[in-house]
């Protein structure tokens, strides 16, 4: 037995020796081969990338959070699509680098009490060389209102005469109060006084669409780089779906001399903010937002950190549909009584730039003369736990319940919204004994659930579409499709009606102040904060404009400084 074992052992070692040698050879080749593949991959990846902001070629490399879901400007609703459209399209008017409204396709314009006239410039062209005419605008606006087109932003055109009726299908498209007088003059009639119509025309739903081209795409307009016709400073040069999007300077743009970048290359499409920050760290992209977790790192890297308010207001939306617990006034009041926006912003979100607020109307909105919020201060709010419990007891008595069933809180799927939701889950449990179930969904699904009313509380936000308080004021009117909680209050509706049908700034702002008060007093939503964003940019990338209303970030005025410049 022991002998046999020894023999085996002996055989084993000889076998081992030759095998070891073979293994070494094979392993060596393996390692070499793998190394070569990695090296080749690295080379291929870096092929001609150079700097994220390359002076010689005028190329800026960036990352986007997702690929634009809808580039048909009559139907776009999301920020990514609107940002891309802001670079490749141009409306009647646009915002310049100082956020002033200047002429785009329109050379000059007049806004009257009941109508507006735009005179189009003669050198505005589509990327196929055709001139941009007044007919293109009329076609686009009719398209946006066409019931079959189901544009979610159709309501933004409702200020134009008959627009609402056209959108409902009660009147033919031709009844719309927008008319082309020749190729270069556009006449618009209003349904009601519309003192901010000039600001509206900078929004993407008002962009022109080339009719013949639109029809030639057979329903695929905007789905691909060659399924779009451009009239803006850039054109989409290459669009690899899900991977990258490259914009190239448009030689047919009437003001091409103003544009100093040659290529805007969205080389990375990733929804992970951390990945984008790492790309910036590696010099692969020229601009990235930061999140609260990365601020210390950014300070350590000694980056120049920028901050800007993106203009949007965030809030906890409440479901007002009958039968939902949150339709009870006292329950909403109880939630409000224990809610402390300051604690959320300063201790949980921890991102400079977010400003806690008790008003739906952000500080940058203009009032009668100066700032709206200085003229009409936000409601005062002091968290009071004891009062919250009292109100909850009243709510339970009214609802006829001994204990409240768990409330469903619908949130987005980002790390920040999860953190926020866990904070609220603990806050409402600790202070009121209310159980919260967190329902994290991707954006589309969250929107679908908001629309169908499948929630009690939803973490939501609203960004302005145009530079007037009305963009926030009409959000909770009974007729607004974006009033997802289906809040209905005739007093609020009446106030908004006053504000939108008057031309007198004082009357309008008084009415909007009334809306501000109702939203707090009746707890339509629990306002949280005005969102700020913190970002870092390549030190030689200059002239990028961040703004709350309009294209953001806007690279149309950007340029790259030479090394050492």
């Amino acid at each position: 037995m022991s002998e046999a074992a020894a023999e085996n052992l002996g055989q084993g070692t000889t076998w081992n020796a030759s095998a070891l040698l073979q293994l070494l050879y094979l392993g060596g080749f393996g390692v070499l081969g793998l190394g070569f593949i990695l090296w080749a991959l690295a080379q291929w990846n870096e092929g001609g990338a150079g700097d994220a902001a390359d002076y010689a070629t005028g190329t800026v490399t960036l990352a986007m959070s997702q690929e634009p879901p809808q580039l048909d400007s009559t139907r776009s609703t999301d920020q990514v699509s609107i940002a891309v459209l802001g670079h490749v399209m141009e409306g009647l008017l646009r915002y310049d680098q100082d956020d002033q409204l200047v002429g785009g396709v329109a050379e000059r314009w007049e806004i009257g009490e009941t109508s507006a006239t735009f005179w189009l410039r003669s050198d505005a062209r589509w990327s196929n060389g055709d001139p941009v005419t007044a007919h293109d605008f009329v076609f686009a606006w009719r398209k946006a209102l066409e019931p079959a087109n189901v544009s979610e932003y159709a309501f933004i055109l409702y200020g134009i005469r008959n627009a609402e009726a056209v959108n409902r299908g009660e009147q033919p498209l031709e009844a719309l109060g927008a008319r082309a007088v020749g190729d270069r003059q556009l006449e618009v009639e209003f349904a009601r006084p519309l003192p901010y119509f000039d600001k509206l025309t900078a929004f993407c739903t008002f962009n022109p669409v080339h009719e013949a081209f639109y029809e030639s795409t057979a329903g695929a307009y905007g789905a691909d780089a060659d399924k779009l016709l451009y009239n803006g400073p850039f054109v989409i040069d290459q669009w690899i779906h899900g991977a990258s999007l490259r914009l190239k300077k448009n030689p047919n743009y009437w003001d091409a001399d103003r544009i100093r970048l040659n290529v805007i290359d969205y080389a990375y499409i990733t929804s992970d903010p951390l990945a984008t920050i790492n790309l910036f760290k590696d010099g692969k992209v020229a601009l990235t937002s930061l999140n609260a977790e990365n601020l210390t790192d950014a300070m350590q890297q000694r980056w120049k950190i920028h901050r800007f308010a993106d203009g949007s207001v965030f809030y906890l939306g409440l479901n007002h549909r009958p039968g939902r617990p949150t339709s009870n006034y006292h329950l909403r009041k109880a939630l409000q009584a224990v809610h402390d926006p300051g604690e959320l912003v300063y201790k949980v979100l921890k991102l400079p730039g977010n400003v806690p607020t008790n008003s739906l109307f952000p500080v940058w909105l203009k009032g009668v003369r100066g700032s709206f919020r200085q003229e009409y201060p936000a409601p005062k709010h002091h968290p009071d736990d004891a009062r919250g419990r009292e109100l909850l007891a009243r709510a339970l008595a009214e609802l006829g319940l001994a204990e409240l069933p768990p409330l469903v809180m619908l949130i987005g799927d980002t790390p920040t919204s999860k953190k926020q939701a866990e904070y609220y889950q603990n806050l409402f449990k600790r202070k009121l004994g209310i159980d919260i179930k967190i329902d994290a969904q991707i954006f589309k699904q969250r929107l679908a659930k908001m629309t169908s009313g499948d929630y009690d509380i939803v973490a939501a936000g609203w960004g302005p579409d145009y530079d007037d308080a009305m963009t926030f004021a009409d959000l909770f009117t009974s007729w607004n499709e974006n009033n997802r909680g289906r809040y209905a209050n005739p007093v609020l509706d009446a106030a908004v009606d006053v504000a939108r049908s008057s031309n007198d700034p004082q009357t309008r702002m008084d009415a909007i102040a009334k809306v501000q008060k109702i939203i707090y007093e009746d707890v339509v939503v629990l306002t949280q904060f005005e969102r700020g964003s913190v970002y870092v940019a390549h030190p030689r990338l200059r002239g990028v404009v961040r703004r709350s209303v309009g294209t953001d970030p806007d690279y149309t005025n950007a340029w790259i400084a030479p090394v050492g410049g």
Partner: protein
Amino acid sequence: MTTNALSFEPVRVEREVETISRPSLSYWQDAWLRLKANTRAIVSLYLVIGLLLFTVFGPWLWQVDSSAQDLDQISAPPGAERAVTVVDEYRPWQGATATPVAGAGGELQAPASLSVAGDATTRAVRLQWSAAPDAGGYRIYRSIFDTAPDGALGLPLGDVLDPTTVSFEDRLDLQPLTYHYSVVTLDDRGREATGYTSVPVEVTRVITAAQAHAKGLIDSADVVRPGDVLKLQMHPLGTDYLGRDMLARLMHGARVSLFIGIVAPFAFVLVGIFYGSVAGFMGGRVDQLLMRFADFVVALPFLLFMILFRILFNVQPGDNSILPMMVAMVVLSWPAVARLVRGQILQIREEGYIGASRLLGAKTNYLVLRHMIPNTMGVILVTLTFAVPSAIFTEAFLSFIGMGVAPPTPSWGSMCNEGLKTMLTTPHELIFPAAFISITVLAFNLLGDGLRDALDARMRATE
């Protein structure tokens, strides 16, 4: 000499050659002896026992609510300073104003002086500065690093767009550290001037008496005066990103992780033993049929079934999906065990002692239960100990991708997921749950390794 019966004496048979010198050992006693000789396995065994005690009795000893949020100690590492000074209630600050100064033209200057008004506390730092000539506004920066070498000012906290206001109140996430505040002058279009004025500020941690009562730092009978120093709650392993106690979360997380890690493997190993022994014992066509079905189950994708079971069990958003996770594991993981057991049974069926037993009239039940399953026990135990870590990993993975537990229930996997985001700034949030997963998995693996050596009957023969 006569011989008779008395002359004879019976021969005494000495049977001592047959005596067993050492006490006889059963299979299990022998296995235990050999396991004891294996230090690695014994250490692992103690670790496993320790983990079970930690899970079962831990929450009784450390009675901290795993979902309570201590917002004063967010992401605090273990052993962080806990001293806190009592102060009066917060009073809003009016700020400071100054008449704008007209400059002599030329480049914009930074304010000449920058100072702190009142005490710099974690509740608020109030800055004021002297008006700069021609200023259109000011921008305030804060950094935890010195601004001196290259003028990296850190975080932009806010803008004051009114030249008459020369003060700013910072309340953003203040920690008891030294901060470097800077003020930069803005022109009337909001563009920054080049210079800056900087001041280092040491911040002390404060709390009001009411907050201290609410947090249970002092009894309601205690009277504290401003200036008294208290200690915040202790968190032996620090806190996470919402100020929740890591130790309590690890204990509660272990309940989920170990529950799934132990119950699921037990269940699917039992199913596998039953299925495998039936197939192995029956043999022939039945065996073929059963094992082809097992092959079919192996081919089913786990994640897809996990999602299907979530729907089947009507898991509402916000509910834990521990049950569907376990069912999916049991339904899909048994074939590996079944194959192993079947192989063993097939082999044992042909052994001589089985034939002998059969000749003696043993029934099928007796054969299977008395001879076959005990002889496959070694293999089964080893499979079980290796299945535990893989189940823990599966749970960790599913919670990591958000399909496992729902907040605020912690599990080690979801804690790793959360800790990953702040890996660079507060590594303890990732290290502790990751270490617990690693240690548990390693302990079960080494124990399994030791058990395999100890239970292997052939190794017994060679000694």
